[in-house]
Protein backbone atom coordinates (compact mmCIF):
# COMPACT_ATOMS: atom_id res chain seq x y z
CA UNK A 1 0.00 0.00 0.00
CA UNK A 2 1.37 3.41 -0.96
CA UNK A 3 1.24 6.53 1.17
CA UNK A 4 -2.23 8.08 1.25
CA UNK A 5 -2.95 11.32 -0.52
CA UNK A 6 -4.05 14.40 1.42
CA UNK A 7 -7.74 13.61 1.03
CA UNK A 8 -7.30 10.06 2.35
CA UNK A 9 -5.18 11.37 5.23
CA UNK A 10 -7.85 13.95 6.14
CA UNK A 11 -10.57 11.28 6.06
CA UNK A 12 -8.46 8.97 8.22
CA UNK A 13 -7.87 11.73 10.78
CA UNK A 14 -11.60 12.47 10.80
CA UNK A 15 -12.31 8.80 11.48
CA UNK A 16 -9.81 8.86 14.35
CA UNK A 17 -11.43 12.01 15.82
CA UNK A 18 -14.86 10.34 15.61
CA UNK A 19 -13.65 7.33 17.61
CA UNK A 20 -11.98 9.58 20.15
CA UNK A 21 -15.26 11.47 20.53
CA UNK A 22 -17.09 8.19 21.14
CA UNK A 23 -14.78 7.50 24.06
CA UNK A 24 -15.06 11.07 25.41
CA UNK A 25 -18.85 10.64 25.34
CA UNK A 26 -18.36 7.87 27.91
CA UNK A 27 -16.71 10.21 30.43
CA UNK A 28 -19.29 10.50 33.17
CA UNK A 29 -20.14 9.28 36.62
CA UNK A 30 -22.29 6.11 36.82
CA UNK A 31 -26.09 6.63 36.78
CA UNK A 32 -26.37 5.86 40.49
CA UNK A 33 -23.77 8.40 41.57
CA UNK A 34 -25.58 11.76 41.35
CA UNK A 35 -28.97 10.37 42.42
CA UNK A 36 -27.37 8.58 45.36
CA UNK A 37 -25.40 11.65 46.35
CA UNK A 38 -28.54 13.83 46.22
CA UNK A 39 -30.47 11.32 48.35
CA UNK A 40 -27.61 11.11 50.84
CA UNK A 41 -27.58 14.91 51.04
CA UNK A 42 -31.29 14.91 52.00
CA UNK A 43 -30.68 12.12 54.52
CA UNK A 44 -27.84 14.05 56.12
CA UNK A 45 -30.09 17.11 56.45
CA UNK A 46 -32.77 15.02 58.15
CA UNK A 47 -30.21 13.56 60.59
CA UNK A 48 -28.85 17.03 61.43
CA UNK A 49 -32.39 18.21 62.23
CA UNK A 50 -32.73 15.37 64.75
CA UNK A 51 -30.23 17.43 66.77
CA UNK A 52 -28.12 14.61 68.22
CA UNK A 53 -24.46 15.69 67.90
CA UNK A 54 -23.11 12.12 67.98
CA UNK A 55 -25.60 11.04 65.33
CA UNK A 56 -24.70 14.04 63.17
CA UNK A 57 -21.00 13.25 63.51
CA UNK A 58 -21.51 9.58 62.68
CA UNK A 59 -23.74 10.41 59.68
CA UNK A 60 -21.21 12.96 58.38
CA UNK A 61 -18.35 10.48 58.64
CA UNK A 62 -20.48 7.79 56.98
CA UNK A 63 -21.45 10.23 54.22
CA UNK A 64 -17.80 11.13 53.59
CA UNK A 65 -16.67 7.51 53.57
CA UNK A 66 -19.51 6.40 51.28
CA UNK A 67 -18.80 9.23 48.90
CA UNK A 68 -15.08 8.51 48.81
CA UNK A 69 -15.82 4.86 48.07
CA UNK A 70 -18.38 5.64 45.35
CA UNK A 71 -16.17 8.29 43.75
CA UNK A 72 -13.24 5.90 43.75
CA UNK A 73 -15.34 3.12 42.19
CA UNK A 74 -16.40 5.49 39.43
CA UNK A 75 -12.71 6.31 38.94
CA UNK A 76 -13.47 10.03 38.57
CA UNK A 77 -15.65 9.63 35.50
CA UNK A 78 -13.48 7.10 33.72
CA UNK A 79 -15.80 4.16 34.30
CA UNK A 80 -19.40 5.19 33.76
CA UNK A 81 -20.19 1.64 32.82
CA UNK A 82 -18.23 -1.59 33.02
CA UNK A 83 -17.75 -1.49 29.25
CA UNK A 84 -14.58 0.56 29.06
CA UNK A 85 -12.10 2.52 31.09
CA UNK A 86 -11.23 5.89 29.59
CA UNK A 87 -7.58 6.86 29.66
CA UNK A 88 -6.67 9.43 32.29
CA UNK A 89 -5.10 11.76 29.74
CA UNK A 90 -8.31 11.73 27.69
CA UNK A 91 -10.44 12.57 30.73
CA UNK A 92 -8.07 15.38 31.69
CA UNK A 93 -6.43 16.29 34.96
CA UNK A 94 -9.09 18.65 36.25
CA UNK A 95 -12.19 16.47 36.38
CA UNK A 96 -11.59 15.16 39.90
CA UNK A 97 -10.83 18.64 41.24
CA UNK A 98 -13.87 20.18 39.53
CA UNK A 99 -16.29 17.52 40.77
CA UNK A 100 -14.96 17.80 44.32
CA UNK A 101 -15.05 21.63 44.12
CA UNK A 102 -18.68 21.37 42.95
CA UNK A 103 -19.49 19.27 46.01
CA UNK A 104 -17.64 21.62 48.38
CA UNK A 105 -19.48 24.66 46.95
CA UNK A 106 -22.81 22.89 47.37
CA UNK A 107 -21.82 21.91 50.90
CA UNK A 108 -21.23 25.60 51.68
CA UNK A 109 -24.57 26.43 50.02
CA UNK A 110 -26.27 23.86 52.26
CA UNK A 111 -24.87 25.51 55.40
CA UNK A 112 -25.85 28.98 54.17
CA UNK A 113 -29.38 27.88 53.20
CA UNK A 114 -29.78 26.09 56.50
CA UNK A 115 -28.75 29.19 58.47
CA UNK A 116 -31.09 31.37 56.43
CA UNK A 117 -33.97 28.97 56.93
CA UNK A 118 -33.22 28.78 60.64
CA UNK A 119 -33.14 32.59 60.93
CA UNK A 120 -36.48 32.63 59.13
CA UNK A 121 -37.93 30.34 61.78
CA UNK A 122 -38.15 27.13 59.74
CA UNK A 123 -38.76 24.05 61.91
CA UNK A 124 -36.44 21.80 59.88
CA UNK A 125 -33.83 24.09 58.31
CA UNK A 126 -31.21 21.41 57.56
CA UNK A 127 -33.80 19.16 55.90
CA UNK A 128 -35.01 22.10 53.80
CA UNK A 129 -31.45 22.94 52.75
CA UNK A 130 -30.66 19.25 52.17
CA UNK A 131 -33.65 18.81 49.84
CA UNK A 132 -32.83 21.99 47.89
CA UNK A 133 -29.17 21.13 47.47
CA UNK A 134 -29.88 17.41 46.95
CA UNK A 135 -32.02 18.34 43.95
CA UNK A 136 -29.25 20.66 42.73
CA UNK A 137 -26.74 17.81 43.03
CA UNK A 138 -28.94 15.28 41.19
CA UNK A 139 -29.71 17.73 38.37
CA UNK A 140 -26.50 19.77 38.31
CA UNK A 141 -24.04 16.88 38.43
CA UNK A 142 -24.93 15.42 35.01
CA UNK A 143 -24.99 18.96 33.58
CA UNK A 144 -21.51 19.61 34.97
CA UNK A 145 -20.18 16.40 33.46
CA UNK A 146 -21.74 17.20 30.08
CA UNK A 147 -20.01 20.60 30.16
CA UNK A 148 -16.71 18.94 31.07
CA UNK A 149 -17.08 16.51 28.16
CA UNK A 150 -17.74 19.35 25.70
CA UNK A 151 -14.76 21.29 27.05
CA UNK A 152 -12.48 18.26 26.85
CA UNK A 153 -13.58 17.46 23.30
CA UNK A 154 -12.78 20.99 22.15
CA UNK A 155 -9.42 20.92 23.97
CA UNK A 156 -8.44 17.67 22.30
CA UNK A 157 -9.52 19.00 18.89
CA UNK A 158 -7.32 22.05 19.37
CA UNK A 159 -4.42 19.84 20.46
CA UNK A 160 -4.84 17.52 17.45
Amino acid sequence: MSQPNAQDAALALQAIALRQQQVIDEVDMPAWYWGGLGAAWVGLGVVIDLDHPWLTTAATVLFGAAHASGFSRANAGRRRTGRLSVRADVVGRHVTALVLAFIVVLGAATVALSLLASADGARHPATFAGVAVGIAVACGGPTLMAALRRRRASQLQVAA
Partner: protein
Amino acid sequence: MSAEPQFDELIHPSTRLSIVALLASADWVDFGFARDSLRLSDSALSKQFSTLEDAGYVAVERTRSDRRSRVRVRLTPAGRAAFDGHVAALRAVLATANGDGLADPGPATPRKA
Protein backbone atom coordinates in the same frame (compact mmCIF):
# COMPACT_ATOMS: atom_id res chain seq x y z
CA MET B 1 1.76 14.05 20.16
CA SER B 2 5.49 13.99 19.29
CA ALA B 3 5.83 10.53 17.70
CA GLU B 4 8.01 10.06 14.65
CA PRO B 5 5.87 9.86 11.49
CA GLN B 6 5.65 6.20 10.48
CA PHE B 7 2.95 5.14 8.07
CA ASP B 8 1.59 1.76 9.18
CA GLU B 9 -0.06 -0.37 6.51
CA LEU B 10 -1.56 -2.76 9.03
CA ILE B 11 -3.43 0.00 10.85
CA HIS B 12 -4.44 2.13 7.89
CA PRO B 13 -7.45 0.17 6.50
CA SER B 14 -10.52 2.00 7.75
CA THR B 15 -11.94 -0.74 10.00
CA ARG B 16 -8.65 -1.39 11.74
CA LEU B 17 -7.93 2.32 12.01
CA SER B 18 -11.28 2.80 13.75
CA ILE B 19 -10.60 -0.09 16.11
CA VAL B 20 -7.14 1.13 17.05
CA ALA B 21 -8.36 4.75 17.41
CA LEU B 22 -11.10 3.58 19.77
CA LEU B 23 -8.63 1.56 21.83
CA ALA B 24 -6.10 4.41 21.86
CA SER B 25 -8.38 6.61 23.99
CA ALA B 26 -9.12 3.88 26.52
CA ASP B 27 -7.20 1.79 29.03
CA TRP B 28 -9.32 -1.15 27.90
CA VAL B 29 -12.53 -1.69 26.01
CA ASP B 30 -15.11 -4.42 26.42
CA PHE B 31 -15.67 -6.48 23.25
CA GLY B 32 -19.35 -5.54 23.26
CA PHE B 33 -18.61 -1.84 23.49
CA ALA B 34 -16.24 -2.04 20.52
CA ARG B 35 -18.76 -4.09 18.52
CA ASP B 36 -21.59 -1.63 19.21
CA SER B 37 -19.46 1.49 18.65
CA LEU B 38 -18.00 0.23 15.40
CA ARG B 39 -21.20 -1.50 14.24
CA LEU B 40 -19.41 -4.69 13.33
CA SER B 41 -20.51 -8.29 13.71
CA ASP B 42 -18.87 -10.43 16.38
CA SER B 43 -17.05 -12.48 13.76
CA ALA B 44 -15.79 -9.47 11.81
CA LEU B 45 -14.52 -7.80 14.97
CA SER B 46 -12.91 -11.03 16.22
CA LYS B 47 -11.08 -11.39 12.93
CA GLN B 48 -9.71 -7.85 13.13
CA PHE B 49 -8.68 -8.32 16.75
CA SER B 50 -6.87 -11.54 15.80
CA THR B 51 -4.93 -9.75 13.09
CA LEU B 52 -3.97 -6.95 15.46
CA GLU B 53 -3.14 -9.43 18.23
CA ASP B 54 -0.89 -11.42 15.88
CA ALA B 55 0.95 -8.18 15.09
CA GLY B 56 1.39 -7.53 18.82
CA TYR B 57 -0.74 -4.37 18.64
CA VAL B 58 -3.55 -5.44 20.97
CA ALA B 59 -3.89 -7.74 23.94
CA VAL B 60 -7.12 -9.69 24.41
CA GLU B 61 -8.01 -10.71 27.97
CA ARG B 62 -10.79 -13.07 28.88
CA THR B 63 -12.24 -12.64 32.37
CA ARG B 64 -15.27 -13.93 34.23
CA SER B 65 -17.52 -11.61 36.22
CA ASP B 66 -21.08 -12.19 37.43
CA ARG B 67 -20.89 -15.69 35.93
CA ARG B 68 -20.42 -14.15 32.51
CA SER B 69 -17.39 -14.41 30.36
CA ARG B 70 -16.11 -11.01 29.30
CA VAL B 71 -13.51 -10.08 26.76
CA ARG B 72 -11.45 -6.97 27.29
CA VAL B 73 -9.15 -5.59 24.66
CA ARG B 74 -6.35 -3.14 25.17
CA LEU B 75 -3.72 -1.55 22.99
CA THR B 76 -0.20 -2.77 23.73
CA PRO B 77 2.71 -0.31 23.98
CA ALA B 78 3.78 -1.46 20.50
CA GLY B 79 0.27 -0.82 19.20
CA ARG B 80 0.18 2.63 20.79
CA ALA B 81 3.56 3.52 19.30
CA ALA B 82 2.40 2.33 15.88
CA PHE B 83 -0.83 4.33 16.18
CA ASP B 84 0.96 7.49 17.31
CA GLY B 85 3.45 7.14 14.45
CA HIS B 86 0.64 6.55 11.97
CA VAL B 87 -1.27 9.63 13.15
CA ALA B 88 1.91 11.68 12.86
CA ALA B 89 2.39 10.35 9.31
CA LEU B 90 -1.18 11.29 8.36
CA ARG B 91 -0.64 14.79 9.74
CA ALA B 92 2.62 15.05 7.85
CA VAL B 93 0.82 14.18 4.60
CA LEU B 94 -1.69 16.95 5.27
CA ALA B 95 1.02 19.41 6.27
CA THR B 96 2.95 18.67 3.09
CA ALA B 97 -0.20 19.06 0.99
CA ASN B 98 -0.95 22.37 2.68
CA GLY B 99 2.53 23.58 1.86
CA ASP B 100 3.74 23.57 5.44
CA GLY B 101 6.32 20.93 4.67
CA LEU B 102 6.91 20.41 8.36
CA ALA B 103 7.52 16.73 8.33
CA ASP B 104 8.06 13.83 6.05
CA PRO B 105 5.36 11.15 6.41
CA GLY B 106 8.09 8.60 6.93
CA PRO B 107 8.53 5.22 5.32
CA ALA B 108 5.67 2.81 5.06
CA THR B 109 6.01 -0.31 7.17
CA PRO B 110 6.48 -3.44 5.05
CA ARG B 111 3.44 -5.17 6.59
CA LYS B 112 0.71 -6.47 4.34
CA ALA B 113 -2.82 -5.41 5.36
